[in-house]
C-alpha cells in the first residue's frame, strides 16, 4: 500500500507539463494557422490537439492531487533555473500546496470542458484556429499562475492570459468596437502588470528572491518595504479581478465568443487576482493598512457590481457584474484574512458562473425579457443614472489618463516637427543641403560674414590687381562651393579625410 504514494510522488517533477501542454498546443495551432489551415477538414486536428492537451493537464493534476491527498501536498518543487543573471535568478519552480492543486484541478477541468464545448460552438467560424490559439494560451497561462512557485513564472502566466484576452475580445476583428474594447481591456490589465513587475523588481532588490515562500512568507521585516511590495501585487490583483478602480474593463470585455467569455470573465481569469491575494496573504496581513485597503476595495467593488448589475439589460453584462460582486466579496474576505473562505468561494463560484455563462445564449429563450430594475432603484433617478453610467468611471479614466496621454503624444509630435526639426534642419528646407537648421544657418551666417569682411577689405584696399585676382579666386571658390554642395563631392571629401587619417 505504501508503494502508491511513492509512485504518485514520482509524478511530481512532471508538473511543468501541466502548463506546457496547452502552451505547446497553442504553438502548434498558431503554426498551422500561419501555414494556411482552413475549412472543415482542418478543424479536427486543431480540436483534437487542444482537447488532448487540456485533458493531459487535467489527468496529470488529478494524479498529483490524489498523491497529495494520500501523502500530503509536496509544497515547493524546484526543477532548475529558467534563466539567470547575478542577483537575478529566475528559478523554474512550482508551488504544489493545497490551494494550488485544488484551484489547478478546477482550472484544468473548466478549461477542458469549455474547449470541448467550443469545438462545436465555433464549428465553421472563420477564426476557428485563432480562437483555439487564444484558448490554449489562456489555459496554459492560467495553470502557470496557479502552479508557479515564484512570482516571475506567475507573471509570465499573468501576461499570457492578458494577451489571450486581447486576442479573444477582439475575435470579431472586422468590428472596430470589438477591437477597441480588446485594446481597452488589455491596457487596463497592463497597468496591473506594471505593478506586478514593480513588485518583482523590489523583491529582487530587497529579498534577493522571488520564490513565493520567501516573498509572501513575511521575510521582509520593515513595514515600509512590505507595504511597497504588497502594493504592486495588490494593484495587479485588483486589475485582473476587475475590482475598483479597474472595474470598467470587464464591462467591455464580453465581445468575444461566449465560451471565451465564460472562462475569462466568468469562471477563471477574473479569479486570478483573488488567487494571487490568497498566495500573498501573509505579506498583506503584515501591513494592516494594506489589508484594510484590500478589504475596502473588495467591499466597494461588491457594492458597485451589485448596483450596476441591477441596471444591466443584457445577460452577459448582468453576469459580468454579478461576477464582479462575488469577486469583490472574495477580495473582502482576503483583506480580512479569511483565505480559506475565499478559496472555497472561488471554487464554487467559478464552477457555477462558468456554467451560467455557457448557458447564456439560451437565456434569450429561457428569459425573453430582462428583469426590470428593482423599484427602490428605479425611484431614485440620480442613483439609477449613476448605476446605468457605471458611476462614470470610464469617462473619468478617459479624461484623466487616456486624453492627456494622447494629447501628449500629439504635442511631442508637434515638438518634433516644429522645433527640433527646425533646429536640426528638416530635409528639403533651404536651398542647399546645409542651409537649414540651426547649425546650417549658423554656417551660412558665418560664410556671409566672412564674405562681407573679404569684400570690405578688398574695397578698402582699392588695389586693382589684387581686386581682380581676389575676384577670380572668389569665382573659383564659388564654383568650388557649388561643387561641394553636390553630394558626390562631399563624398570625395570624406574619402580624402579617410586617406589623411589612414
Amino acid at each position, binding site marked *: 500500500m505504501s508503494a502508491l504514494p511513492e509512485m504518485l510522488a514520482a509524478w511530481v517533477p512532471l508538473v511543468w507539463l501541466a502548463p506546457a501542454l496547452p502552451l505547446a498546443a497553442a504553438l502548434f495551432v498558431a503554426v498551422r494557422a500561419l501555414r494556411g489551415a482552413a475549412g472543415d477538414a482542418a478543424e479536427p486536428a486543431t480540436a483534437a490537439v487542444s482537447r488532448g492537451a487540456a485533458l493531459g493537464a487535467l489527468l496529470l493534476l488529478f494524479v498529483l492531487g490524489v498523491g497529495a491527498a494520500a501523502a500530503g501536498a509536496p509544497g515547493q518543487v524546484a526543477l532548475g533555473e529558467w534563466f539567470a*543573471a547575478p542577483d537575478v535568478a529566475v528559478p523554474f519552480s512550482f508551488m504544489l500546496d493545497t490551494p494550488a492543486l485544488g484551484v489547478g484541478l478546477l482550472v484544468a477541468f473548466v478549461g477542458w470542458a469549455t474547449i470541448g464545448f467550443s469545438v462545436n460552438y465555433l464549428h465553421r467560424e472563420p477564426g476557428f484556429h485563432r480562437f483555439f490559439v487564444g484558448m490554449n494560451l489562456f489555459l496554459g497561462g492560467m495553470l502557470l499562475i496557479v502552479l508557479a512557485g515564484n512570482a516571475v513564472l506567475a507573471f509570465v502566466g499573468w501576461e499570457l492570459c492578458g494577451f489571450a484576452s486581447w486576442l479573444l475580445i477582439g475575435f470579431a476583428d472586422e468590428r472596430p468596437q470589438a477591437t477597441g474594447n480588446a485594446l481597452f481591456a488589455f491596457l487596463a490589465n497592463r497597468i496591473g502588470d506594471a505593478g506586478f513587475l514593480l513588485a518583482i523588481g523590489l523583491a529582487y532588490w530587497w529579498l534577493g528572491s522571488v520564490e513565493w515562500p520567501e516573498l509572501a512568507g513575511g521575510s521582509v521585516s520593515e513595514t515600509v518595504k512590505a507595504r511597497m511590495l504588497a502594493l504592486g501585487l495588490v494593484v495587479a490583483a485588483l486589475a485582473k479581478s476587475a475590482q475598483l478602480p479597474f472595474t470598467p474593463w470587464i464591462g467591455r470585455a464580453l465581445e468575444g465568443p461566449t465560451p471565451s467569455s465564460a472562462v475569462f470573465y466568468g469562471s477563471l481569469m477574473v479569479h486570478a487576482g483573488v488567487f494571487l491575494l490568497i498566495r500573498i496573504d501573509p505579506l498583506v496581513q503584515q501591513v494592516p493598512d494594506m489589508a484594510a485597503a484590500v478589504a475596502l476595495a473588495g467591499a466597494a467593488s461588491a457594492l458597485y457590481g451589485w448596483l450596476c448589475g441591477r441596471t444591466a439589460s443584457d445577460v452577459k453584462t448582468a453576469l459580468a457584474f454579478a461576477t464582479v460582486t462575488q469577486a469583490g466579496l472574495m477580495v473582502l474576505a482576503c483583506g480580512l484574512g479569511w483565505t480559506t473562505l475565499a478559496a472555497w468561494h472561488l471554487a464554487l463560484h467559478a464552477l457555477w458562473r462558468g456554467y451560467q455563462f455557457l448557458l447564456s445564449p439560451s437565456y434569450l429563450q429561457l428569459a425573453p425579457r430582462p428583469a426590470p430594475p428593482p423599484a427602490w432603484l428605479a425611484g431614485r433617478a440620480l442613483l439609477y443614472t449613476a448605476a446605468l453610467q457605471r458611476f462614470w468611471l470610464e469617462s473619468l479614466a478617459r479624461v484623466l489618463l487616456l486624453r492627456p496621454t494622447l494629447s501628449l503624444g500629439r504635442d511631442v509630435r508637434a515638438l518634433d516637427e516644429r522645433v527640433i526639426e527646425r533646429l*536640426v534642419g528638416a530635409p528639403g528646407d533651404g536651398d542647399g543641403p546645409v542651409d537649414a537648421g540651426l547649425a546650417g544657418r549658423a554656417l551660412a551666417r558665418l560664410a556671409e560674414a566672412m564674405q562681407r569682411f573679404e569684400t570690405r577689405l578688398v574695397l578698402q584696399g582699392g588695389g586693382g590687381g589684387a581686386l581682380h585676382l581676389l575676384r577670380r579666386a572668389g569665382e573659383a571658390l564659388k564654383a568650388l562651393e557649388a561643387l561641394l554642395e553636390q553630394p558626390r563631392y562631399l563624398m570625395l571629401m570624406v574619402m580624402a579625410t579617410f586617406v589623411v*587619417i589612414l
Partner: protein
Amino acid sequence: MADFPILGLLLALPFAGAAGCLLLARKDGARGLALAVAAATLLAALAAVALFDPARGDFQLVEKRLWVPGIGVHYHVGVDGLSLFFLPATALLFAAAMLAGARAPRPAPGLYYGLLLALEGATLGVFCALDTLLFFVFWELTLLPLYFLIGLWGLDAAGRAAAVRYFLIMLAGGVPLLFALLLVGAHGGGFDLPALLAADPAALPYGVQLAALLLFLVGFGVKVPFVPLHTWLPSLALGAPATVTALLVGLKLGAYGLLRLALPLSPLAVRDLHWLLAGLGTVAILYGAVAALAQSNLRGVLAYGGVSHAGLAVLGLASFSVAGAQGAVLLMLTLTLATGGGFLLLGGLQRRLGTCDLAALSGLRQRLPRLAGCFLLFGLAGIGLPGTIGFPAEFLIIVAALPEHAGAALAALFGMVVGAAAFLAPYRAAFFGPLRAGPAAEADDLTQRELAAALVFAALIVGFGLWPAGLLETIRPAAEAWAARLS
C-alpha cells in the same frame, strides 16, 4: 582550427562580394551572387559562434596585424560575449533583407546589392574591431553605402533629402567620436582596445575621461539616437527603402558603441555621470513611446518604438551591473529580430499597397493573415510579452535599473504601458476593422519565400524567449568583466 582566421574570413566575404556585384553592375546575376555571399557570411558568423568558448570572458578569435606603423594602428579584430551574437544577428538580417527586398531594384541592381554587402562588411567590422581607430574606420564606412542606398533608392524626394541630412548629421557625429578616440589614445597609450580595457580605471586622468565621455555621448548619441538628436530616424523611416530602414533601426550600433567604448573607456567619469546616462535613456523611452502614439504611419510607429527601445537598452547599461548589461545586449538582439523583421514586413506591405499610411489601411488581417500574424509576433516581442525574447531582455533591464535608478525604472514601467498602446493601437487601425476596396482587397499574402524568412525570425524570437539562458550564459562572463570595470 583554433588559429583559422574566421573573423577575417567573415569580414572579407561581404567586401569581396560587394566588389563582385559592382563588377557585375549591368548584369542580372547580382542578386544570386549577393544572396550566396550573404548566406556564406551567415555560415561564417555561425562558425564563429561555434568556435567561441562561452566560459571565457576575454576576447577570442583574435587576429592582429600591424596596419599603419607610423601611428600604431592595427588590424585587430576579436569578439567577446558582449559582441559575439551581433555577428550572426547582423548576417541574418542582411540575408533576410536581400531575400525580402525587391528582386532587381532599378536603376542598378548590381550597385544596390554591392552597397548592401559593403554595408554588411562595415557593420560586422564595427562589431568585431578591437583597435579603436579601426572601429572608427568601420563606423564611418557604414555611412557611404547608406547614403547611396537611401539617396538612389529612396521612396521620394523627401526620402532622398533625408539621406543628405542623415549623412551630414552622422558625419558631424563622427568628429567628436574621433576626438574622443584620439584623446583616449593619446593619454591611454595607444589604440589597442584590450590593453586600454585592462589598464587601471584611474590610469586615464579624470579630466580626460570626462571630456572623452561627453564627446562619446554626442558621437554615439546621434546614432542611438538620444532625444533631441533623433529626428533623422523617423524621416528616414518614412523616406528610405524599408530594407535599409530595417538595417538602420534593427542594428543598434549606437548603443553598442556606448557599451563597447564609451563606458569602459571612461569608467570614473561615467560613474559620476550615471544620472546623465540614465536620464538620457529615460527621456528616450518616454519620448519614443509617447511620440509613437501620435504617428499616422506604421513606419513612423516602428521608428519611434525603436527610439524608445534604444533608450531602454541605455538604461540597462546605466545600471553598470551584469544583469543590466546582459539585458541590454539581449534587448539589442531582440530589436534586430523584432524591429528589423517588422520593417522587412512593412517593406512587403509597401510593395503590395504602395503605402503604410494608417489612414489608407484597414482590415488587412482578413486579406493578409500571415503578414498580420508575423507582424503581431514581432511587435509583441518589442513590448516584451513573455514567451518572446523581448521578455527576459526588458525584465532584466528593469530589475537591474530599479536599485540604481528607481525613478527611471518606474518611468520604464510607465513606458511599458504606453509602449503596448503605441504598438497595439496602430496595429488595430491597420489590420483590424472592415476591409476596404482598393489595392488592399486584391493584395496577396506573404509568398512562401517571405513566409520562410519571417518564420526563421519568429522561431528565434520564440525559441530564445523560452530558452534565454542559451544566450545569457554566453554573454555573462564578458558582462562580468565589463561590470567589474565600472564598479
